[in-house]
């Protein structure tokens, strides 16, 4: 039995089947990217065990919408390919210098597959918007949101209690001994349309406190969007409790940014808190100052030629102050983070840097180098062998 399983996993036929499925996965994933955008497609096709492809657009009412072509996902194909490659090599490979190139190629491919898993599990991508002359020491996600409760009581210190919002459902309780109060999520909308009730509408208010109560806002459920440049208006109606005391209902949404809407504050005992729902933030021990953002165009046109950000990165605890120019294909690498020039706004006075932390970032470079060197080595060995075989002057060599 064990022998049969072993033979199965070392089989070349298995390799061909898995590669065939991989090509199909890439093909159908590319087709679906039109409907779901890059991030959702990545999750559905490459970060899953199984995926169903359906040619109908998402949220279709058709009776065929729930039927799809089943395909093994990336998390099934990847491990199987890895096992197949490693087991076949260890079972069948007979070491000799003449096969060193093949070994290097295979090790490079194994490293490439492993690097993909490392990136999936550990890589974090964030955005950092900075105005010219401004300094920032935090970045935010463009996909994930968090409920943030900020204790503002102390004049010198803010205590932030941040709760991931992606697993919330209507009716959830959020209770934890670390939190200053209990939260009942009465309604949660992954996407919402926030509007004011019309004079003829007889809809009861959803919130008794805060911005929504003061302005008569209600939130209606809206279809989640997967289009790359659109955001989902993550919104929740939460009821807060200090022990058994009901602190009222609050509408929190990532649409309520600090520029247009006042902070939603509540007093609990002698403490003042602010509650909000915002894009998930990551704070750093260093800060980035945008000294100058430059946007060059081809002369006489509006066609962008290049854009670059001159930044100074400061880490007072480490005594580091470093100036750098970030532009396309020239990111800044600092303390395990990579800063890419991503976008700009406000008539070229604000720059957006994409901040990526990926502990496995060197693995693809190493693996591709190994595969390249392995190919050169193997072809080189083959070339020298064929020259030896063809030359009639060499002794002891068959014609």
């Amino acid at each position: 039995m064990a022998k049969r399983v072993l033979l199965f996993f070392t089989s070349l036929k298995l390799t061909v089947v898995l590669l065939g499925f991989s090509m199909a996965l890439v093909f159908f994933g590319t087709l679906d990217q039109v409907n779901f955008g890059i991030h959702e497609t990545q999750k559905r096709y490459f970060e899953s065990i199984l995926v169903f492809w359906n040619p109908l657009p998402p949220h279709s009412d058709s009776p065929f919408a729930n039927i799809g072509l089943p395909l093994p996902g990336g998390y099934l194909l990847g491990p199987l390919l890895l096992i197949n490659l490693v087991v076949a090599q260890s079972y069948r490979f007979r070491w000799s210098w003449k096969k060193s190139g093949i070994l290097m190629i295979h090790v490079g491919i194994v490293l490439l597959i492993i690097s993909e898993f490392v990136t999936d599990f550990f890589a974090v991508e964030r955005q950092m918007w900075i105005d010219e002359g401004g300094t920032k020491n935090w970045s935010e996600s463009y996909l994930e949101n968090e409920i943030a409760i900020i204790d503002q009581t102390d004049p010198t210190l803010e205590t932030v209690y941040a709760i991931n919002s992606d697993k919330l459902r209507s009716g959830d309780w959020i209770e934890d001994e670390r939190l200053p109060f209990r939260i009942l999520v009465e309604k949660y909308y992954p996407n919402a349309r926030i509007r004011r009730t019309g004079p003829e509408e007889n809809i009861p208010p959803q919130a008794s406190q805060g911005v929504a109560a003061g302005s008569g806002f209600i939130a209606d459920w809206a279809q989640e969007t997967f289009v790359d440049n659109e955001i989902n208006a993550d919104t929740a109606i939460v009821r807060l409790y200090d022990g058994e005391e009901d602190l009222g209902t609050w509408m929190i949404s990532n649409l309520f940014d600090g520029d247009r809407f006042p902070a939603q504050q509540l007093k609990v005992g002698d403490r003042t808190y602010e509650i909000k729902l915002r894009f998930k933030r990551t704070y750093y021990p260093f800060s980035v100052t945008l000294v100058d953002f430059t946007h060059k165009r081809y002369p006489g046109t509006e066609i962008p030629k290049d854009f670059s950000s001159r930044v100074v990165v400061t880490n007072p605890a480490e005594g580091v102050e470093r100036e750098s120019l970030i532009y396309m294909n020239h990111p800044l690498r600092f303390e395990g983070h990579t800063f890419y020039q991503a976008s700009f706004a406000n008539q070229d006075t604000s720059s957006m840097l994409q901040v990526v932390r990926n502990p496995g970032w060197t693995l693809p470079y190493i693996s591709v180098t190994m595969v390249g060197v392995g190919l050169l080595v193997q072809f080189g060995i083959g070339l020298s062998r064929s020259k030896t075989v063809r030359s009639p002057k060499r002794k002891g060599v068959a014609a």
Partner: protein
Amino acid sequence: MKALLFTAILAITMILTGCDSGSEEIRVYQLSKPDGSAPTQAPQAPVAPFADSARAPATSVNPSSSMNALPGMEAAAAQIETPEWSVPEAWDELPPTSIRKGNFKTGSAGRTAEITVTAFPGDVGGLEANVNRWRQQIGLDPLPLASLQQNLREIEVDGQTAQYVDLMDPNNAGGIGIRGAIIPRGSHTWFVKMVGDQALLVQQEQDLLFFLSSVNF
């Protein structure tokens, strides 16, 4: 031996694929607040120095607010009709956005200011909340309404009473200030806000008042 090897690899990769790569669901951390001087570390760890251009004396509107599509508010703002007004000569008119009904900038001697006209349904939290929102944008602490009276005076905009708001940071003379008006009008509230270098705001006050007096709903 080989069978053992492949079983181990199989087990490890299956475990890896079963792992949830999500980060911790509740995080608690502390940040020191800006006090006008260089931000300091608080004794508790981990604490990050507070360096946020949206809380420190601001240089411009939070750019994420101008980049994000705001589905619900866009629709609400789009339904509100833009009034007529006269634009002072020193102001450059920029294209309106989905939220900004009026969008201008002005500058001289290296100083710049931005003037925006926005409107929202309801009172958006009321006068105290809105003035404090503007205060926080230039790094000033919020105050109760009674203490804000020194920053407010009543004016008339198209026959309606409005509040003229004058916010300058006395501790940061070379920094950013806000002057503008909050105009309740029917079921909406209009905000005319000039934000920029304080010296330029002083120079531009007459132009701002001229603009406000020319607004015709």
